[in-house]
């Protein structure tokens, strides 16, 4: 997804991004990225965590709130595109910056496939001819066509406008809120919720699996920092819009999972394949519906469901397509940024001579996405592969495999972001922080005052446990995720050695100059003055200490 990204040539002929995103634009940018996740995550979590799906969402949601607060602090302090990759690069050094960026790139490639796949699933509720379960080949070619189409559009340089993003986000929020109102006022029965939780409580393994999948409903916070780069006065706008975004996404995830467990539907639920009565959560989490669970749930809400059955699949599909496009756009942009800091080869910075877009990056990461699509779709396309996957990987279906990898990439990069936040509090206390994560312990470090962020530690422990759940419960994810990282790191080491750059250590960086530029370009001149004063005070203190010794 791209808000109105327009490139302006400065006096130095270096292209920079125009800061034209308003508070609402900043919110909708984040929403169209993170808000689409529940459309994918709900069915997967219900299928995995059954009667404890709301607990899975709650655990992942608490971790997500910590991640959101961390991104808000970092994006308001360092309003520059690059997101987690940039924060880790700055806080922990080159190699960790590479690992974080490489994990984010994995997520962006999965983002492309997973959301294109889910987009087709939602459309299939109105066009059964493209349904995954009945017509896997048609489904496969539709998803492939969407990825190829997005790649071409991005290479040619056509992107949806910010206004379109804002309109779709606005419509979706109104729609989801309406569904929740009808659901909670007319169909929610806490007794049913308690009964479902007691009778369908999963095993510990299933619950861990559910939690690891629930985190995918909260992925996409990179967009907060992306928006920061293009927002006017980001230090004041980003915290305002981020808190609203974090609460909205948390509410939708918790509300849908509670409704799925405790709602009495307006119309009877069809019996399962064996002719047995099935509960709502089971119906939403089965293979037929898990790709479009929100649309199915919405259609079963009293009164509004009749209307929702028609428009929610379309609205969901549009939002998912925007999110898929954000994967194409985001991967090329992160690769471009990493290439600029010599974390990736310069080929990823090469732009198309005619369209002025990073065509090689776009083609490369869309190619990776197509490989992931093939790997995810194979079991449904041929019985021989189904048997092979059943033997090797417990028969995980395609969309679950994509979910596994998505959760792995997110958990890996978010873990590093928490560590980077803690490191930056110690290494760079001079940068003014207009927003800070709550719960801080004041300390004295190297003669200066710093604040140790307790919430970041809680968030780190949460996301590290989710990463361990991914490794424990996902047969495919535990192989494919670390393989991606290991191959990436090997490539990085070879590249750095060939270029005669420090391999394991970081290159020297002038962070002071970088921070002054960042704040100047963001229009945060009062923050820049404060930063300069802090730096001056630090230098004077150090000079005094040197004189004394």
């Amino acid at each position, binding site marked *: 997804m791209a808000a109105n990204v327009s490139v302006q040539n400065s006096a130095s002929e270096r292209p920079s991004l125009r800061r034209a995103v*308003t*508070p609402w634009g900043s919110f909708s940018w984040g929403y169209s990225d993170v808000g689409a996740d529940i459309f994918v995550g709900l069915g997967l979590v219900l299928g995995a965590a059954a009667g404890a799906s709301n607990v899975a969402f709650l655990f992942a949601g608490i971790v997500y709130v910590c991640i959101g607060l961390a991104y808000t602090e970092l994006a308001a302090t360092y309003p520059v595109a690059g997101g987690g990759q940039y924060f880790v690069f700055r806080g922990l050094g080159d190699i960790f910056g590479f690992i974080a960026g490489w994990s984010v790139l994995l997520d962006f490639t999965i983002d492309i496939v997973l959301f294109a796949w889910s987009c087709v699933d939602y459309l299939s509720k109105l066009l059964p001819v493209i349904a995954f379960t009945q017509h896997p080949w048609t489904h496969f070619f539709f998803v492939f066509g969407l990825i190829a189409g997005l790649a071409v559009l991005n290479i040619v340089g056509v992107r949806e406008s910010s206004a379109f993003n804002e309109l779709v986000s606005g419509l979706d929020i109104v729609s989801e809120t309406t569904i929740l109102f009808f659901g909670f006022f007319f169909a929610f029965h806490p007794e049913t919720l308690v009964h479902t939780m007691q009778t369908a409580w999963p095993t510990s393994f299933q619950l861990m699996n559910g939690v690891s999948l629930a985190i995918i409903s909260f992925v996409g916070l990179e967009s907060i920092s992306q928006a920061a780069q293009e927002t006017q006065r980001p230090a004041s706008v980003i915290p305002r819009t981020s808190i609203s975004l974090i609460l909205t996404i948390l*509410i939708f995830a918790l509300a849908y999972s509670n409704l799925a467990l405790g709602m009495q539907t307006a119309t009877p639920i069809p019996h399962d394949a064996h002719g047995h009565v099935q509960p709502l959560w089971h119906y939403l989490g089965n293979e037929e519906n898990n790709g479009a669970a929100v649309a199915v749930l919405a259609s079963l809400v009293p009164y509004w469901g009749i209307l929702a059955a028609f428009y929610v699949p379309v609205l969901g599909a549009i939002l998912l397509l925007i999110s898929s496009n954000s994967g194409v756009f985001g991967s090329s942009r992160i690769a471009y940024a990493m290439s600029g800091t010599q974390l990736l080869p310069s080929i990823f910075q090469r732009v198309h001579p005619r369209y002025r877009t990073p065509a090689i990056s776009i083609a490369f990461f869309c190619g990776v996405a197509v490989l992931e699509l093939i790997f995810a779709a194979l079991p449904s396309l041929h019985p021989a592969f189904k048997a092979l996957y059943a033997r090797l990987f417990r028969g995980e279906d395609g969309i679950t495999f994509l979910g596994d990898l998505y959760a792995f990439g997110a958990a890996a990069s978010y873990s590093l972001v928490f560590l980077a936040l803690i490191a930056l509090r110690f290494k760079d206390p001079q940068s003014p922080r207009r927003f800070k994560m709550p719960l801080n312990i004041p300390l004295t470090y190297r003669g200066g005052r710093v604040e140790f962020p307790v919430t970041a530690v809680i968030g780190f422990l949460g996301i590290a446990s989710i990463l361990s759940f991914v490794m424990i419960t996902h047969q495919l994810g535990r192989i494919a995720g670390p393989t991606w990282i290991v191959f990436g790191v090997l490539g990085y080491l070879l590249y750095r050695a060939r270029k005669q750059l420090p391999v394991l250590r970081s290159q020297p960086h002038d962070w002071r100059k970088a921070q002054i530029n960042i704040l100047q370009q963001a229009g945060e001149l009062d923050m820049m003055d404060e930063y300069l004063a802090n730096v001056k005070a630090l230098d004077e203190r150090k000079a005094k200490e040197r004189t004394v010794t």
Partner: protein
Amino acid sequence: MRRLVRSPGYARARLVTGTLFAALGAVVIVRTAAGGAGWSGFSGYVLGLAMIALAVWRFREYFGFVRK
């Protein structure tokens, strides 16, 4: 869209939706408690509180707009 989100009508809409979220949050908490959900209702209580928090956030934005 930009003109819309800067208008007083939009600010009032935030006030109305904020009030609705506060009401829904209260309903979720009360019904979960009345339904006899003990620890099983924990997720519901958090949901209700999150809705009330969003409502408070929207009220803040509304009053900020009014003050301007």
